């Protein structure tokens, strides 16, 4: 366990080590934060939000060939109350968008979103009146996974990227972070993490 005791430093992207605390936090709870981040990162329970063909790949990610259980994400939940990460798999229609937002709001903090596939991330080929051009117009997306649909290994790569992100965060102030993000659904750019 790293024993980093330092004052709060600004985000420096050149230093992070996977699983390491990127910046010094509160001196008292630093180790607790590290532990919490590890625990959160290694048990990301996804919420099934299969909207289209990407959901088939999402299902096969959990099946024995790729076995998402190796990363602690095997428990796909159908209820938002028990989920940590929402995998938006498929094109998001404008009729579905309020439902997606409501389900996102029902998820307990801390929560993350993976936008899986071209359609969920940007609209893909469906550049028309019915499809939301990017799920990040509705919910803050943490990881975008391109592909049409992304193969299971590409999705697993996205989940690994999310784990890196979760491990890098200061766990104790995540709620505050999300509150700031709620007014800025485009993501974390403006929020100093």
């Amino acid at each position: 366990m790293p024993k980093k005791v330092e004052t709060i430093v600004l985000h420096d992207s050149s230093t992070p080590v996977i699983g390491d605390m990127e910046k010094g936090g509160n001196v008292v709870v630093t180790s607790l934060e590290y532990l919490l981040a590890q625990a959160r990162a290694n048990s990301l329970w996804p919420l099934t939000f299969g909207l289209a063909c990407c959901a088939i790949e999402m299902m096969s990610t959990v099946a024995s060939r790729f076995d998402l259980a190796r990363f602690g994400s095997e428990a796909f939940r159908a209820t938002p109350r028990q989920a940590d990460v929402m995998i938006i798999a498929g094109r998001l229609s404008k009729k579905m968008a309020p439902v997606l937002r409501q389900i996102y709001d029902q998820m307990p903090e801390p929560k993350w979103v993976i936008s899986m596939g071209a359609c969920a991330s940007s609209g893909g080929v469906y550049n028309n009146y019915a499809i939301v051009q990017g799920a990040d117009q509705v919910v803050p997306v943490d990881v975008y996974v391109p592909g049409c649909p992304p193969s299971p290994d590409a999705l697993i790569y996205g989940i690994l990227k999310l784990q890196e992100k979760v491990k890098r965060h200061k766990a104790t102030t995540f709620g505050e972070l999300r509150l700031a993000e709620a007014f800025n659904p485009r993501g974390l750019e403006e929020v100093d993490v």
Partner: protein
Amino acid sequence: MGLNKEVIKPILAGFGITARRLKHKKVTVSYPEQLREQYPRTRWRHFLARYENGLEKCIGCSLCAGACPARCIYVEAAENTDEARFSPGERYATRYEINMIRCIFCGYCQEACPTGAIVLRKNFELADYKRESFVYTKEMLLEKYPGESDEPYVGRYQKKDKKEPAGSTKP
């Protein structure tokens, strides 16, 4: 009698199936450490090719952009001059951008290309944190393929130095 027939025998039969399954080969691909074999025609990340003398194959004709069903390719062409020569033909692409997040990896651009400049390779690890980082510029696309043509692709988590891809952003 009843206990033996209704409890013990089914349990043994059930464990028998488990025992027989133990002999089977494992199907799980332990992905980040080990990559499954990609199919020969797998289409993932785009690369712009060069000729052996270093000139770009792309001539900026925008046929790829025309063939793209998702309209994710943007090409801006300019004339070659003798002082600044980028491609063997008359024209070359000054800007060549692909929006990877909109691309559906159908490979129509590869089919439409008259010079074989754009190639879709097996580099599937493209996920990232920010939308902006998905617009791949010409410089990024002209990178050499990590495993040159027939070599197998090496995953990003398999490398010793966990080097981030070009244009990647930290959260």
